[in-house]
């Protein structure tokens, strides 16, 4: 018996000793982003972490970073993340994250709240040139933290062959909800749904914006999902799903709206700029056109998806990082990125250049004026995921119950 006690206490002592070696290290003070950036002297080496959509994007970013590096005499190492959330989290936990990184709008608030981000937006010369809604997306507690690097919006894609076969013409392009419903009904056949939608609030949210509603109130202190505006918008979609003219991707055996559209299981879809590259690569024979989303009862509305250039508060060379971001968000550089991998510049002054160069993308860039960014309050990721999961069986969903449970769940998160 005593031998067991001795062995047990010895092992506990050993473990405790091992633990103590892992403890220690200076505490981190809560840094809400001092306005004076850390500036390292001499040539610095900046680390950049990006989540790339493919070789085109990786090469474009590396070229831009190298150009700045040569001009300024520093070096930039660009790393492409295979799992952005995980690698970013690992960087912050270890205390030495990348200096500059892609910051997705949906995750932005959590990182702003725990002090990981350096708020440099007030140091940019022409910060007001960025679209107002994009700047709003990256604002937490009244302070804008970072500069949006580009954005995409949702628009309506129409399969021109199916359109002509249903006897529709240019004058039939839907301008209101009723137009959209009747056009989708005309396009619906046995083998093809009129409108194919991707799952989740990142698509049906466009209808909510068109009806003047949103999931949260303006300063993200209260959830407003269980309101008539939101419910009416979702009911409009649900009625059409029950009638069979709108169908979701999981009803069409597709992963997303673009796949349903490309495989011709749907004659129309609502997707963003990324659909251009996807159709070109995977469905090159498809003939389609893009138009702006129809207006809802309260006017035009669409969803914006954007990322910003995040600079970490732990970075030792924040001044140089801000300089790098300034060069990456110049009009010329943003147009170069648009050329390379099809995103839209986040500067309003670049809009005309973009429209002149890519006239077929005019419906997308028009969304910069009336689009709404994603839900960006801290801690809301789990609540939104639950809402999306409850909306997967959209036709049978009990909308008032689902929206109320969203409000309840969000309420317990938004107060903190």
């Amino acid at each position, binding site marked *: 018996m005593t031998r067991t006690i001795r062995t047990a206490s010895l092992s506990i002592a050993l473990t405790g000793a091992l633990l103590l070696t892992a403890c220690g290290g200076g505490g981190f003070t809560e840094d809400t982003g001092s306005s004076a950036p850390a500036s390292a002297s001499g040539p610095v080496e900046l680390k950049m972490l990006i989540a790339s959509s493919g070789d085109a994007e990786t090469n474009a970013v590396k070229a831009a970073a190298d150009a700045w590096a040569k001009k300024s005499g520093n070096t930039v190492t660009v790393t492409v993340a295979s799992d952005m*959330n995980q690698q970013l989290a690992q960087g912050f936990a270890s205390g030495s994250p990348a200096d500059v990184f892609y910051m997705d709008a949906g995750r932005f608030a959590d990182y702003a709240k725990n002090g990981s981000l350096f708020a440099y937006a007030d140091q940019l010369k022409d910060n007001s040139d960025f679209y107002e809604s994009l700047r709003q997306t990256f604002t937490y507690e009244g302070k804008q933290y970072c500069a949006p690097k580009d954005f995409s919006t949702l628009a309506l894609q129409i399969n021109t062959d199916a359109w002509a076969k249903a006897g529709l013409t240019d004058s039939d392009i839907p301008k209101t909800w009723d137009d959209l419903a009747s056009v989708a009904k005309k396009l619906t056949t046995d083998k093809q749904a009129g409108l194919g939608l991707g799952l989740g609030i990142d698509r049906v949210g466009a209808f909510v914006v068109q009806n003047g509603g949103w999931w949260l109130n303006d300063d993200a202190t209260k959830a407003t999902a269980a309101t008539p505006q939101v419910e009416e918008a979702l009911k409009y979609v649900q009625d059409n799903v029950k009638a069979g003219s709108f169908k979701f991707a999981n009803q069409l055996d597709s992963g997303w709206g673009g796949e349903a559209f490309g495989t011709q299981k749907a004659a129309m879809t609502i997707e963003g700029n990324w659909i251009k590259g996807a159709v070109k690569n995977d469905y090159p024979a498809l003939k389609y056109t893009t138009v702006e989303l129809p207006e809802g009862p309260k006017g035009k509305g669409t969803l914006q998806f954007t990322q910003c250039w995040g600079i970490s508060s732990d970075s030792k060379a924040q001044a140089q990082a801000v300089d790098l971001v300034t060069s990456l968000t110049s009009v010329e550089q943003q147009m170069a990125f648009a050329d390379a991998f099809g995103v839209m510049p986040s500067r309003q002054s670049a809009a005309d250049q973009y429209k002149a160069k890519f006239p077929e993308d005019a419906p997308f860039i028009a969304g910069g004026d009336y689009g709404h960014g994603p839900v960006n309050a801290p801690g809301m990721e789990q609540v939104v995921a*639950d809402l999306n999961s409850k909306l997967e069986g959209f036709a049978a969903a009990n909308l008032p119950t689902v929206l109320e449970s969203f409000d309840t769940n969000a309420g317990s998160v938004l107060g903190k």
Partner: protein
Amino acid sequence: MSTADQAVAPGTSPVPRRRTGGKGAGQRQSVAGWLFVTPVLLVLGLFLVIPIFMALWVSFTNWTGRGSPFSSGVGLVGTDNYTALLTQEGLSRQDFMISLRNTFYYVIGVVPLQTMLAISLAVIVNQKFLKGRSFFRTSFYFPSVVSSVAISLVFLYLFTGTGAVNQFLGLFGIDGPTWFSDPRGLLHMIGGGLGLWSTQSPPGFLVDTQVMNLSLWEWLSGPSVAMSAIMLQVVWTTAGTFMLMFIAALQDLPSEVEEAAMVDGANAWQRFRNVTVPHLRPTILLVITLGVIGTWQVFDQMYVMTQGGPGKTTLTPAYLSYTAAFNQAQWGQGAAMAFLLFILIFVLTSFQRFVLRDKDVAKQKKAERAQRRATKKGATA
């Protein structure tokens, strides 16, 4: 042994010198032993034991993911993370209970299936007159060797709405479901088919009674169609490993025992039930224990194939712990979930060991312990 150079005077004992030599060799052996074991101890300690204790610490804090969890800014919140998962009415508890329900049906489906499949394959492959035994052994074991991510991707394509599986079912006129988009529970569908209830309007008392954030109707859903596809894949993949363990145990069964049973007039099934299976009992215990541990910890398939969907029906505690920590920045809760899962597995395997113990050996041990206690009491009295 240095007995040769001992000038032993009559009457003196040569033992001391021999004992010194023996003690030196023993000491050298123990030093050598520790020397060989130290690298593994270091690696295990640094990469397994310490992170586990660090995670235990994180589960009692409100660490936000920035900087070291041992820094001075991190606050201790005691059991808040655990109560959020077990007793507080909220989204975290709902998600955790959903993951427990999903994995419970997964375990109940996979462990018996893979054990029975492994035993059957082992008995078949072990037959002496089977031609090409090593070919069959290799091909049955092959899925266990291939990366689980690669197999998951292949099965993802096999089970699409127009994939190979549905085309095969179409040959029999069965319209297969879109497997990985189908959240309907098997028990719900079977009950609906048998006429016990209607899946469109389930019985009121099942829907209204809420136990731990989920209604009874949701608890009784069974594995979803998507989960069933994953279960089929996992059974196919892991049966091979356990088949090997059974083959090894079967080699130990002397053929004379089988022949004696045949002489006594037992047919193949009776021989299997009364001779083979009792002999395999320790291996069955091992396989079921490993199966239970492995299935409760399932993560790879969910991460690659379904990400917890459709409708959260393939959410498991391990995957939920990962998403809570990395995607939802709830590090304390993610760590707490991992430890709740550990406790659950520990309790289950202890219970299973108790149920499947060898009762004769247990009785004998109990008698020995009682005897030892009696002699000790008699000695001290």
